[in-house]
Structures are given as structure tokens and as C-alpha cells.
């Protein structure tokens, strides 16, 4: 069963939404406390989905939650009574997984949340792939830089420089990138 943290800190009555969610078979945890406690609450409740009002002042706090829980991110779903497709589109572009309009019927909630979960998961996978790609591109550049420095220092060719760096890394049980960083640091020190 999906566990939903419903952040209830605006004047909007969430009674109907909550009833609809419960009726649709979700476990709803109503959070009406101080928004300052939100990160801690998310940590203890560990919801599958976070539902928040578009007008909620807590949205800034959610930004913090998103950053703090970067390693275990959760989909965030907005609810609103405005039926403005532009607002929704912008929010979704900004990383919100789905939108729920106040007054929605219970049977329509399940598919929306399913889509939100799926969308969120694929976003996360994409993000992880991009992150891995950025990181290895950065590592590759550092290794190239170190190789160039070593070629100058040792007056050797590219392959010899790689071999020297790799042997050094392996005998010290390190990764190539670590030795590359050491070479770069040393060369900066010696100017």
C-alpha cells in the first residue's frame, strides 16, 4: 500500500482529498504541524509520495527536503484547485511528478499516482545516468591532464605515461583517478 504524506498547511480544506485518497486505498498521513519540522517528519514517516498544496509556504521547506534526501528522493505531487494547465506544466518541468486537482474522484487518484511514481522513477534513472556520465567525463579529463603532465616530466610517450600511472595506482591499491589527482597536485605544488 502506498503511503502518502499529505502536507496540510494552507487554508484549503483537504478533508475531501484525504477522504478520496483513503477511499482509493492509500495510507494517508496528515501532516499539519509546523513546516519547520517537515524534513524530520519525512525522515521518520518515509512516505512513498508527498502531496503538497501549490500555495503552501511549506514548498520552500520541501526544497530543503529534496536536497537533504537526495540519496533517497521521493516523488512530490501537487494539489490545487486551479485548473491552469500552464501552472501544472511549469511545475512538472521543475521536477514535480504530478498534479491533482481538488475535488477529484477517488477512482481517478490511483492512475495519477501510478503515473507519478513511474515518471519519478524514470526521472531518477535518467538523473543517475547523467550524473554518472558527467562524473566520468570529468574523471577522464583529469586523467588526461595528469597523463600530459607526466609525459612532460618523464619525457615519455602517452602509452608509457598511462602504464606508469596504472602501475603506481595498482601497487598502492588505488584507482587511476586518485593517482591522476596526486600528479596534478604535485605539479601544482612544484609550479
Amino acid at each position, binding site marked *: 500500500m502506498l503511503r502518502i504524506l499529505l502536507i496540510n498547511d494552507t487554508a484549503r480544506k483537504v478533508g475531501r482529498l484525504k477522504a478520496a485518497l483513503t477511499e482509493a486505498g492509500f495510507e494517508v498521513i496528515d501532516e499539519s504541524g509546523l513546516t519547520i519540522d517537515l524534513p524530520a517528519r519525512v525522515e521518520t514517516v518515509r512516505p512513498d509520495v508527498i502531496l503538497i498544496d501549490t500555495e503552501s509556504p511549506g514548498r520552500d521547506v520541501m526544497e530543503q527536503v529534496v536536497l537533504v534526501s537526495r540519496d533517497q528522493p521521493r516523488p512530490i505531487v501537487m494539489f490545487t484547485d486551479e485548473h491552469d494547465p500552464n501552472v501544472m506544466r511549469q511545475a512538472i*518541468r521543475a521536477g514535480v511528478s504530478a498534479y491533482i486537482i481538488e475535488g477529484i474522484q477517488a477512482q481517478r487518484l490511483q492512475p495519477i499516482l501510478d503515473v507519478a511514481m513511474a515518471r519519478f522513477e524514470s526521472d531518477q534513472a*535518467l538523473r*543517475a*545516468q*547523467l550524473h*554518472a*556520465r558527467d*562524473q*566520468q*567525463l570529468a*574523471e*577522464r579529463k583529469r*586523467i588526461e591532464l595528469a597523463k600530459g603532465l607526466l609525459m612532460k616530466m618523464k619525457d615519455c610517450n602517452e602509452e608509457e605515461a598511462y*602504464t606508469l600511472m*596504472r*602501475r603506481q*595506482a*595498482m*601497487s*598502492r*591499491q*588505488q*584507482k*587511476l*583517478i586518485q593517482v591522476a589527482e596526486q600528479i596534478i597536485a604535485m605539479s601544482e605544488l612544484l609550479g
Partner: protein
Amino acid sequence: MNDPLAWVNGSDAPEKSSLDLGFMALTDCASLVVAATQGFAQPYGLTLNLKRQSSWANLRDKLVSGELDAAHSLYGLIYAVHLGIGGVAPCPMAVLMGLNQNGQSINLSRGLQTQGVVTPEALERHVHQSRTKLTFAQTFPTGTHAMWLYYWLASQGIHPLRDVNSVVVPPPQMVAHLQAGRIEGFCVGEPWSASAVKENQGFTLATSQSIWPDHPEKVLGCTQAFVDEYPNTARVLVMAILEASRFIEQGSENRRSTAQLLSAREYLDAPLDCIEPRLLGNYDDGLGNQWQDPHALRFFAGGEVNLPYLSDGMWFMTQFRRWGLLREDPDYLGVARQVQQLALYRQAAETLGIAAGDSEMRSSQLIDGKTWDGSDPAGYARSFRLHALADDASRQALR
């Protein structure tokens, strides 16, 4: 917003940029560790994350579930999963390349040594004259070590399923079980044999290369689904590991630093002096004999090690049949063609200028004098004096 991965479409860049690779703490996982840590995959836009596994069964389950993208695998294990032998439903599997040849061994306890059991002949006499059955350990029911142990025992006139007990023990625990007297012998990969000798718990009676010089051993295995979904990724993965394999064999200094890297806590977590000598081909059997082995563990040999010959894959199926793990002859050649990714391997090797030859089979002579060349697998499986082709024996083998 443009799809940031769109540039991948239509190019031959890897579809997936970060791969989780499983391995077991064994010296012959070296090419994976070197490829992942020494920057061999980065030029292809690939990050390799090493995931050490605690058992072959666990590694297998994670491969099948997709939690691991590819893994350092026992040759036989891949075929067992593909054919549905053992604890899982059949799942189409793929062998991307061979990772190494040789370098496993059969070891006996010091207890047997004190009874004068230090030669194959003495072991055969002991087995047939003693009233209690000896217990031998291997690492996985359908794995290479089980097959080397069975083949070797049978070549000495000992029936591996009737004359002795055969049990499974994870490689790093072999020495402890030997010490505790729960087993009298075992077949395992390094550094666990060298470690038994070093700790004076046992001695090496036979190397796997004495059973079959340059025999196939570990492979880079994955599911067929992985190859279908990520063909470019699979190809550059093979290229990165081929280059690492070549690097390991460029001079003894590279082999030595490979040994140092492997001994680290996150890889083998074993002392350097148990890893380095046999990785350099320097054997000490614990009985006072030392030699430089001409068929020691090798990772590359100009690419000879890495070509996934159909005949290598088929051999394991013939032994499954021989020992009753398969109750009927499979379509040996058809199955091998599905599993061995020869075309993909050849593309990768040729891009790197590594010889990949035209042949799909190779011919070898094994310890019992028989030749295996892949030409008549069903006949070969039935040609052994000692076997367990009958159904009642197959239950024993599965135990």
C-alpha cells in the same frame, strides 16, 4: 526540454553509461578489477561499478534479476541457468567473452599426507580400500570446479559421485573447512589453494591445467536480455575488459602490481604472498616441489583466452550430461550458438586489432588422452568409462 540522451540515438555509444559488475573474491577476477579501477572503460563513456558477491548462487540470482548487469562467472553456471539446471527457472544467458584460462587446483589435507596419500595412485588405492568415504568440496554444483574435480577423479579411476562424497563450500571458506577436518580435499580457484599450502593445511595434488592445458574457466556472463537491450554497451564492455586483460600481461611488473591491487580489502582481502606467486606462474605444491608452470593462469595471450569458442561452451554441457545433471542430450551446438556471443566478441576484438580468427571450435587433449574438438558432443558425453548417465545417479549429482 530536449531529451539529454537523444544524442545516443543512431550512434554506437553505450546505451547505458554505468554498469554494476559482480565478482567473486578470486585471483581470476583480475581483468574486471583492473578494467574498472584503472580507467579502461572511461574512454568509452562507461563507468564500471564492482560488486563483490558472497556466493555463486547470489551472483547468479542478481544476474538473472538484473541487479547486476554482467559478472565474473563460472562457465558452467551460465549454461546451468540457461538450461534451467539447479535452483532457478531457465533464463536465456550470454557469454560475452572468456576472462581467463587455467589456475585452479585440487588439494588434499595434511591428514591424508601423513597417511602417505601424496600421489593420484595412492589416493585411488586409499579410496577403494578405506571403509569411510572421503569428502571433497567444490564451489558450485554446475561450476567449473565440480567439473574439474569430477573429471580428474574419474581419470584416476575414482567415481566422483559413488566413491567419494562431494559437497559445496564457498571458496574463501575452503581452508577453514579443511582445517576443521570436515573435508579431506577440494577443488578451488586461487588464492585459496595457495593459501592452504601457505597455512600448512594442505598440499596441491593436481592443477586444473594438468587436466586440460589452457582450459576455459571464468567468463563474462550476462542475460541475453542485456545484450539485446544494450548491444553497444555490451560491446564496449568487452573492449574495456580486453584492454585490461592485455595490460595485465604486458610484463611481469604489471602482473605484480595486479596482485597488489587484488589483495586490497575490497577485492580479495587476502595476503599478497598467497596471490602473487601463482599469478606469476610460480607454483609450490606444499610437498617440496616448485616449478614455473607453462600453463599458469592467463587472461589474454593475444586474445586466445578471450574468444568464446562454441566448443568450450559445449564441453560443459557434455559433462552435465555425463554426470546426470542433464537427463537428455541438449541441442549442444544450437545452445552454444545462442549463449556464446561470438559475433559481438569479434567486433570488439577487431576494433582493437586483436586477432579473433575464423574458427568456432578448438581442439584439445585432456588428461585421460581423449580429444575434445566439439565435433560429436553426444558421442563424447557417452564415451567415458566412469559416468552417471542413469537417472538414479542424476539425483546424486544434483545433491
